[in-house]
């Protein structure tokens, strides 16, 4: 697909400065925003494209955030649900930096522990913390293991 292909129209316009998150697993764009803490009430100008054709992934989602350069540790948090995502930092319409995402060893404040008896699901002044293992995510406090459907537990 080309941006100038008149039969398809202009899907998402280029941005002057900011971050483009490309190659997001199809259907996960909104979860990606949720993890990044970008909600309807934030001031960033956002463009979201879902189920766009992709040679590599078949279908993919794209998110563009204007005037905000996401830091590496911020975007690494999305690796769990979008492991193939590519981050492009845009300055003056040019790609200034391009990087992949890496699953962090510890995930803080991203996922809620599904164990109702876990101390993190109470009024204590603490943040949910999960150790990222090959088998899934293990709650640092109660040892609960989330093996699948991680997106269902995003805070």
């Amino acid at each position: 697909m080309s941006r100038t292909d008149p039969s398809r129209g202009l899907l998402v316009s280029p941005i002057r400065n900011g971050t483009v998150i490309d190659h997001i697993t199809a259907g996960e764009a909104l979860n990606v925003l949720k993890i990044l803490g970008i909600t309807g009430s934030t001031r960033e100008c956002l463009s979201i494209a879902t189920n766009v054709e992709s040679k590599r992934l078949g279908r993919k989602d794209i998110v563009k955030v204007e005037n905000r350069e996401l830091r590496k540790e911020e975007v690494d948090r999305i690796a769990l649900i979008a492991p193939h995502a590519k981050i492009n930092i845009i300055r003056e319409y040019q790609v200034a930096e391009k990087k992949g995402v890496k699953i962090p060893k510890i995930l803080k404040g991203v996922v809620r522990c599904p164990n109702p008896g876990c101390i993190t699901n109470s009024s204590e002044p603490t943040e949910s913390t999960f150790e990222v293992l090959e088998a899934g995510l293990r709650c640092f406090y109660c040892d609960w293991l989330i093996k699948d459907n991680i997106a269902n537990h995003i805070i």
Partner: protein
Amino acid sequence: MYHIISIRDFERRDLDYLLDRAQEFDAGKYQPRMLEDKLAALLFVEPSTRTRMSFATAMARLGGMWISVDSVEASSIVKGETLADTIRVLSGYADAIVLRHPKEGAARLASEFATVPVINAGDGAGQHPSQTLLDLYTIRQAMPVDGISVGLLGDLRYGRTAHSLALALSLYGVTLHTIAPEGLEMPESIIFELRERGMEVVEHKDVQEVLQELDVLYVTRIQRERFPDSASYYNVASSYRITPDLLTDVREHLMILHPLPRAGEIDPAVDRTPYARYFEQARNGVPVRMALLREVMR
């Protein structure tokens, strides 16, 4: 700072070290007033008899002092105070905090806010490391732990002592037989973890399938509140009851353990057999907790 939170934090050499120290305390090889100037806060926001009293006994035997909260009703928690705040306050009073709490992960959280060592004395359905150490200690008194067959019987879903013990035994090449009623089986995630650690885990429904192969049978309480009505509870509980009749043809050195209190899982007539070791096990709580208190307040 040295906290005792979960068996997962320990390697085998750490467990063996603590068990060796407990053995020295048991043999009377220690300075009687070793913790003379120390004070432990026993924060028990869930009922406990043995654990609380054995920690208090251990402090007293080492010449130390303790302060205690024995129920939620008697504490500021009833006024809505967070555990984090309670722990910060107690850190200013005591040299160590021993915590029993109904929420899983409470001890881990407490260790983040405490400025003194925290010992987990049981957190919800989670971990109970001092119980596990005394269980291991009791087994080790009778036989080497390496390579033995251990049966865990009863409520393996919610029973924290079973979870902690299984994890510890996985460090000793033990074959684990789980025997639990439907609905109270050991959580899949724990079995998965045990197998990842290289442990052979065999699941059973009936204790008679495996009793003759066991070196240790660890019985836990089946709680009435886990069942919808009394009839179904009695039905299940009676089929998991250990009686002297079941103990014919078992291994001569079979050891029956129970973290106590029991609620009918072991017939009192079993107490008179050479297999019953649960009262000895309870007694071992004191030297093991002496070793833990000493280590964290060094």
